[in-house]
């Protein structure tokens, strides 16, 4: 960021970005596995400008005037839906929200018919969350507008991974070379999957620490399905020397389905607490995609401690989603 000095003498031109907008070639955002490092860098660079817009007295620019953005959520959400809605509104797009439980979907309308309806109503961008992995990919094959995946099943949540990387870059200067430890239920976590892709593409060193029953099978054999990460079942060894400790939400139904013996055991072995956090670098960041179960996967002290950037992640989410909307809908109409 450029710094301002009262006399104007030390005012410097913004540094030339390492990338140009021509690096961008996506019409949809479904996952990060098909992103290049340049494209991710471009999103982070544009998000920086968007953050400046959000700091203005009037937090609105006319870049997407006349464009229609629709959110289609088949699952509950607080921050992701609000964040996308605010992002679209800050760019002056028209936004409509559709929640599955309050729509004709309850009358049995299919996903594709619903999407075609949104298209007929003029959606330029559809932001979609669905419990079924791959649903946004199917959607992208049926509509001309852009589809942004706002979370599908266990598969991907690309905008969350991008805002996580934006937050890391804001604090650490670069994502490349960072030691990032992801702790918790990586198997059922779309956030962790997208982060593993994004972080490895950007050149970070990823360590995953999960109970054996909550570790994705494919992660043990890197290849087309997963990039190479370090698997460390011992939480103390996993956290040691980390720049970023990313904690995932433990869904309580994992206990009921027998994947974990008891909540107390999970807390004992895998909870990120003050004592364990001391093993990370002194300036390590603590991240959590939310919503948090305080006292379960993360202690309250760590969740609200000085190293926690959980609330900042939410704020940065709006800027990163503005960047995505600008890149998808801000240029020439397809």
């Amino acid at each position, binding site marked *: *960021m*450029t710094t*301002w000095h*009262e*006399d*104007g*003498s030390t*005012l410097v*031109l*913004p540094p030339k*970005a390492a*990338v*140009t*907008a*021509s690096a*961008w070639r996506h019409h949809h955002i479904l996952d990060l596995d098909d992103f290049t490092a340049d494209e991710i860098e*471009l999103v982070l*660079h*544009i998000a*920086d*400008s*968007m953050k*400046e*817009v959000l700091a*203005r*007295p*009037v937090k*609105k*620019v*006319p*870049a997407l005037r006349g464009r229609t953005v629709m959110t289609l959520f088949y699952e509950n959400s607080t921050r992701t839906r609000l964040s996308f809605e605010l992002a679209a509104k800050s*760019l002056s797009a028209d936004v409509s929200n559709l929640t599955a439980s309050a729509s004709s979907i309850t009358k049995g309308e299919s996903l594709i018919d619903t999407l075609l309806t949104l298209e007929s109503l003029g959606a330029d961008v559809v932001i979609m969350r669905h419990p079924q992995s791959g649903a946004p990919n199917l959607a992208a094959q049926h509509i001309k507008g852009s589809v942004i995946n706002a979370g599908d099943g266990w598969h991907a949540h690309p905008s969350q991974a991008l805002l996580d990387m934006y937050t890391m870059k804001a604090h650490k200067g670069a994502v490349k070379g960072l030691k990032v430890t992801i702790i918790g239920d990586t198997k059922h976590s779309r956030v962790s999957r997208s982060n593993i892709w994004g972080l490895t593409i950007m050149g970070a060193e990823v360590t995953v620490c999960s109970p054996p029953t909550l570790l994705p099978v494919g992660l043990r054999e890197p290849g087309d399905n997963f990039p190479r990460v370090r698997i460390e079942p011992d939480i103390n060894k996993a956290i040691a020397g980390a720049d970023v400790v990313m904690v995932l939400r433990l869904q309580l139904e994992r206990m009921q389905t027998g994947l974990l013996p008891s909540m107390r055991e999970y807390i004992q072995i895998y909870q990120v607490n003050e004592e364990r956090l001391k093993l990370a670098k002194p300036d390590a960041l603590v991240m959590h995609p939310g919503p948090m179960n305080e006292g379960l996967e993360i202690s309250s002290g760590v969740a609200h401690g000085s190293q926690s950037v959980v609330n900042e992640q939410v704020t940065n989410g709006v800027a990163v989603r503005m960047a995505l909307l*600008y*890149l998808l809908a*801000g*240029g*020439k*109409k397809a």
Partner: protein
Amino acid sequence: MPVKVIMTAEDIRRTLARIAHEIIEHNKSLSGLILVGMLTRGVPLAKRLAANIKTFEGTDIPVGILDISLYRDDLDSREFKPLLNSTLIPGDISQKTIILVDDVLYTGRSTRAALDALIDFGRPHAIQLAVLVDRGHRELPIRADYIGKNIPSAHSEEIKVELTETDTIDQVAIYPAQEEGQ
């Protein structure tokens, strides 16, 4: 290679000294002034004007940076979206007199976008426009308050301002027509 050099480094230096004097003459009080440079080349020009005013009158004038990309009216027709940069406006602009600085005044559309952007930051007392080159061909009812040099030009020609801060030399030159603007 340029067809014709219109302003040399010395011409640019003298012109910016003259514009600085005009700004001083035109604005009775310098205390409420803010110079805002439009990215990219308006910014070094604004800084040089601020330095001149400091030399002539001893007054520090704050300098801001304005990126108008998000306010452009041609976003739809451009092949590539512009890469965004951060805007930096020093403090509250309400009741201040803003001097908007750009390198070339042409269709007036960039100025229109800059006016929209500035007004989102508050309600300035007045906005004045300073440009190093006015090449004509206005498409909107916009004019400059301070003009370095009027250069009548053809649409097909490209007028390029180069400054040491962003390029290698200080120079204004006419280049033959190119397929796509810079």
